[in-house]
């Protein structure tokens, strides 16, 4: 679904996650986002935030929350070309909470960090192409996009992600808005 290195194929590499067979215009449910949010309810936002912080935790360097990664994901899932990813992501977030209740009898927000890691490992190690494995991969990809993407998308606040990996280049002009570019392009 997400582009990168697509020009190379190699039999020894795992294939990119296949796209769902049919994008659906109805996939975009609207009107449920919490105030200030574009995609998530307050509950979903809290769960996604907790999960992202376990993927990229704060230590002596900033983590996912310091970089506003969940804000990035909330905004990104509303861009036109992500419409059918959005459905998968919301379903996956619900599954994350269900799996947590099976394992610990509580929601993802109510368990400890080590318990959260156990849930995430379970998702990560699920059979390839299962809903849970695909959700973990999607969450990781979006978290890294939010951590290391252009700050105009809402993540990588104060360029903390770029500082961590030592990335520096001339940036887009100050008024640049990546989300607006994607919308302009996706609406063609």
């Amino acid at each position, binding site marked *: 679904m997400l582009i*990168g290195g697509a020009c190379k*194929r190699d039999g020894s*590499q795992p294939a990119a996650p296949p*796209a769902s067979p049919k994008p659906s215009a109805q996939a975009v449910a609207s009107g449920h986002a919490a105030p200030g949010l574009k995609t998530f309810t307050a509950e979903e936002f809290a769960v996604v935030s907790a999960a992202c912080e376990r993927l990229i935790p704060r230590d002596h360097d900033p983590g996912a929350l310091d970089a506003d990664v969940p804000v990035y994901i909330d905004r990104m899932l509303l861009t036109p070309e992500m419409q059918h990813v959005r459905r998968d992501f919301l379903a996956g977030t619900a599954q994350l909470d269900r799996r947590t209740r099976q394992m610990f009898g509580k929601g993802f927000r109510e368990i400890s960090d080590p318990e959260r890691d156990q849930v995430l490992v379970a998702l*990560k190690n699920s059979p390839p192409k299962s809903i849970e494995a695909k959700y973990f991969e999607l969450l990781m990809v979006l978290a890294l996009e939010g951590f290391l993407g252009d700050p105009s998308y809402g993540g990588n606040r104060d360029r903390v992600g770029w500082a961590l990996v030592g990335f520096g280049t001339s940036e*887009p002009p100050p008024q640049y808005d990546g989300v607006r570019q994607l919308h302009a392009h996706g609406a063609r």
Partner: protein
Amino acid sequence: MALPPADVCIVGSGAGGAPMALQLGRAGLKVVVLEKGAHYQKEEFVHDEILNSRRNFFMPLPWDEPHLIRNGASGKYERSNAAWTANCVGGGTVHMSGYFYRLKPVDFRLRSTLGAVPNANLADWPISYQELAPFYDQAEEELGVSGRVVAHPFAEPRSKPYPLPPLQEHPISQEVDRACRKLGLHPLPTARGIISQAYRDRAACSYCALCGSYGCEIGAKSGTNSTLIPAALQTGNVEIRPRCMARSVEVDRQGRAKSVVYLDAQGIEQEQPAKVIVVSCTAVESARLLLNSTSSRFPRGLANDNGLVGRNLVFSSFGESRATFRIAKRKDTWPWLDDPAPFVQRSLQDYYLMPDDRHGFRKGGTLGFMWTHPNPIFAAIRIAGSGKDGIFGTELKDRLRAYRDSKILQFEIYGEFLPTAGTYLSVDGTTKDKYGIPVAAITVERHPTDLAMTKFLVERGEEVLAAMQPDKLERVGIAGETTILQHGTCRFGNDPATSVLDKDCRAHAVSNLYVVDGSFMPTSGGVPTTLTIVANSFRVANRFLAKLKRDG
């Protein structure tokens, strides 16, 4: 209702379409160029990895416009964005890295050189290197190529130096040279389609970090969008229509091409009549367009009497390994290691053609050395891995910090990709793109010789990297294909029974139809082929105009 007729309608504005547009416009012909993507201006090329490399700014998304790809005829098709190049004015030359090699004389004579290779459908080209050489000169001149000619056992003959001196190099290039020479190899500076000095009103390269897979925001990259297309528009005879998706080439009762039917930027169907039609949408998309252009004269697709349109698809054989050098550890020995200079610019062609087949192959290719792509999201996703081997949390952050302290040198292989009966393109009527047009379906069945070759080349490349004593040496792949380099689906030849195009890239079966992207190439060669496609298009334009003059 049809639009006013043009002399020539060209579908595609990349490496193949642009030289034709320019030369025919210069000759005074009225040319309409249809381009499915947008006409980006320099200012729209920004250093935004998400926009450029991870969404559909350049490449379509697999759910909008998939390519179906499967391994072997018994494999299952998967939707993919592989085998697309950038969809915009300039095509793949906009986001290319600009490794501008020429083919070598042997590439034009592979069947004669190798003899009959079992299960490989080899053919000599109907032209020689010498016939193409003047047009390589012209292509290098018009586009602007920076490089340095050095003597070399496999050097192809050339009549003049590169138009521009080489780009600046990172100090690591000297270490690559040292390692190669220690192994008895002959490292070559890689010529680039990037200008090292101001050239024809264009600014010189500023050595930003993000080049390949990005558009150049100052126009220093020699894509047709910065060079041939503006020159073509300046003739006053060429009109370019962006966001116009060709659906079919229509024929008249005599079976001559008469028009291109396309969907315009508003999605409205239009018909552009022209005396001559030139198709140049990449080897995959051109074959798709011809196969989708059925008529009572051509029920199997335009110019496809012999069933060869889409057959003999060849990509470029791919392999890659990476060497990691930790900056902190080499502070004293290599204090220059963290120099941000982006270009390594070294190639090895010592294994271009082997004297015998003791290693399981004879025709090899090129190893190109470069820094790994600096896109941070791309790098981090690779580091995070997936499935049981995937990591997250502190382990991931530690690895990201180690990455910050690293410079990663890689080589890529551009190897011969032998044509096989099992690697071809067809059109699947059941899967359509967002325009409602049946998509290209690609079947890949590699020749075992290719895999012996890439394995051998990867091993030799790894010896070079190992000689530099890296902190880590990692094999990325030995059995892949680079699908942005694509050829062969309308191979040219002298015999209408075994080829689609004649030696001037005109369809045997349709006297006013030309195909000028990589489709004409019966064999892939052992280098990236962008420069060759440009040069050939200049050659075809030259032949076309000579014929026009002859015929009155």
